[in-house]
């Protein structure tokens, strides 16, 4: 009897103690709401700096539905745990961050907690944003608070119990969130440090390019070793890069700045919006990113250099007739692909020689399949590369045949496995990056014609 009572007492004590500890870990106070500040109260130079920082952070990409109002949120982000909807970060008082003081914004960036004290899911990459300095957070806040307010309630996330309980995120943070702003490395150049600050912080490159563990946290031991995003493969951007030609600082700079490079092709899929944003910021920042990333890639191995030279030499040699057509895949390539991809017309409007394509040399066929099926859509208001999609013109067998031909002819990698399954998946899933925004230049109501 006494013994049972002692055990019961211990259990109760543990539960209470655990509860208190859990509460201490999970509970965050609400920060008092403010009246939405008037836009003119912000310094214009600060707002302008915030604009560039927001572009470096690619904020609009996740916080805007395709064709919707900028920063109004509502984009469905597929994760292995369920669908999470991005929030409205316009200064709308009721549905956005209009009533957030700067302190609340900084807390969200630094530790993933909203104004009410609720934990935010790490789909919002505060594991990177924790590196951002107070001054940069201030500029971002000033920029966002001076955008047009849009009334747009954020849809409820689709998560199963217990992940739908936000306090669970507190445990995740205990395990994986390393707080603290970026600490410069005194042995490296100022430019390198600027690049590292941006890449590891606001630009959050690792959010897509670093693989994640079973709990959805980036695997620190495999930084930049390639990850998944929205049914695309975000390539390894370290020593394991599958790019046929090794990257260097100048190639990275021009790829990130203009969205393509003759030795690497064009940035499409989820990377398209990233380079679009990077084309609009101070080029010094883009160059700093390129400098830092060059050191992340590390010096290419002699084998990699040899492979790159080989591929470039093959391309520069006079065009060989489009190869044998003894297989179905070869015949499809010659008839449907080579007319653009083997004409030698310069990028970005000519098709890249597929020997240079990272998609064809990559670890899985998803990116190549996405592009073959859906093509590359023109970007509204820009001169941009395009490619017609073949989803309706090719059967799964035909796509599969051409892929295995491309893999064997244009890469030195072993054949992909599970190609058929990946094609089926890709047909089923319309990825966000391939959704067509409704055209903005043709108003539904002709009376609205003069309005922007």
């Amino acid at each position, binding site marked *: 009897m006494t013994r049972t009572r002692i055990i019961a007492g211990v259990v109760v004590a543990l539960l209470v103690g655990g509860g208190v500890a859990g509460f201490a870990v999970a509970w965050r106070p609400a920060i008092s709401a403010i009246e939405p500040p008037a836009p003119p109260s912000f310094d214009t130079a600060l707002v302008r700096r915030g604009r560039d920082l927001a572009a470096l952070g690619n904020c609009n990409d996740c916080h805007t539905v395709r064709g919707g109002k900028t920063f109004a949120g509502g984009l469905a982000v597929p994760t292995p745990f369920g669908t999470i909807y991005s929030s409205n970060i316009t200064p709308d008082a009721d549905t956005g961050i209009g009533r957030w003081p700067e302190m609340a914004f900084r807390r969200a960036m630094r530790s993933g907690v909203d104004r009410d004290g609720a934990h935010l899911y790490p789909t919002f990459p505060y594991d990177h944003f924790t590196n951002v300095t107070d001054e940069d957070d201030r500029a971002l806040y000033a920029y966002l608070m001076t955008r047009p307010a849009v009334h747009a309630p954020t849809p409820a996330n689709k998560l199963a119990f217990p992940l739908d309980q936000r306090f669970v995120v507190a445990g995740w943070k205990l395990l994986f969130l390393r707080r603290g702003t970026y600490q410069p490395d005194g042995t490296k150049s100022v430019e390198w440090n600027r690049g590292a600050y941006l890449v590891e912080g606001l630009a959050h490159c690792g959010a897509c390019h670093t693989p994640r563990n079973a709990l959805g946290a980036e695997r620190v031991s495999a930084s930049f070793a390639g990850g998944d995003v929205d049914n695309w493969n975000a390539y390894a951007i370290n020593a394991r890069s599958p790019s046929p030609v090794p990257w260097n600082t100048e190639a990275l700079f021009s790829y990130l700045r203009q969205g393509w490079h003759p030795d690497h092709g064009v940035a499409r899929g989820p990377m398209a919006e990233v380079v679009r944003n990077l084309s609009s910021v101070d080029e010094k920042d883009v160059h700093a990113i390129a400098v830092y990333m060059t050191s992340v890639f590390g010096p290419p191995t002699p084998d990699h250099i040899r492979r790159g030279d080989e591929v470039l030499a093959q391309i520069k040699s006079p065009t060989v007739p489009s190869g044998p057509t003894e297989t179905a895949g070869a015949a499809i390539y010659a*008839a*449907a692909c080579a007319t653009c991809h083997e004409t030698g017309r310069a990028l970005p409007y000519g098709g890249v020689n597929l020997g240079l394509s990272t998609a064809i040399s990559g670890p899985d066929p998803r990116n190549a399949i996405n592009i073959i099926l859906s*093509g590359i859509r023109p970007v509204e208001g820009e001169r941009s590369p395009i490619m*017609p999609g073949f989803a309706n*013109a*090719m059967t799964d067998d035909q796509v599969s045949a051409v892929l295995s031909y491309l893999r064997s002819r244009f890469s030195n990698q072993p054949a992909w496995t599970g190609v058929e399954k990946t094609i089926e998946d890709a047909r089923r899933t319309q990825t966000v990056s391939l959704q*067509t925004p*409704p055209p903005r230049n043709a108003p539904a109501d002709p009376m609205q014609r003069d309005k922007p």
Partner: protein
Amino acid sequence: MTTLKVNGHDHQVDADADTPLLYVLRDDIKLNAAKFGCGLGQCGACTVIVDGKAVLSCVTPLLLLEGKQVTTLEGLGTIDAPAPIQRAFMDEQAAQCGYCIAGMMMRAQALLLRNSKPTDEQIRAELEPHLCRCGTHMRILRAVHRAARLMDTAELSTTTQGSAP
């Protein structure tokens, strides 16, 4: 010789396997509704329906079409008995120069085959690959809605059944 199924008929075609479908339709089978616009799959004027789906015929080589059913505008209706989509475009006077319209009608038809009541937004997104320089977009939008209504009652008419299986 390749067999190509167009508008329900088998055609024996003497063309290389890499010939674009558009050339075969226009030059060999003499079906001229599908138009040559850009030849690069960028303008939509060459759109036809293959197994119920819109396809850019200028970038679709013959060898991809084995065993598939091709439908061109000629397969939808005739001058005497226009299909609902054609009647709707005429009623709304949706063509100005008309060069892009055959392609527009084919993709709209393919849309209506899988979605009998598309919204404005769905029609706009669907027809996005089509360029029209005359600017009849608003009429085209109305015509597709009208076609949807006509097709709702298409069983009553004796004209055509519209398209590929």
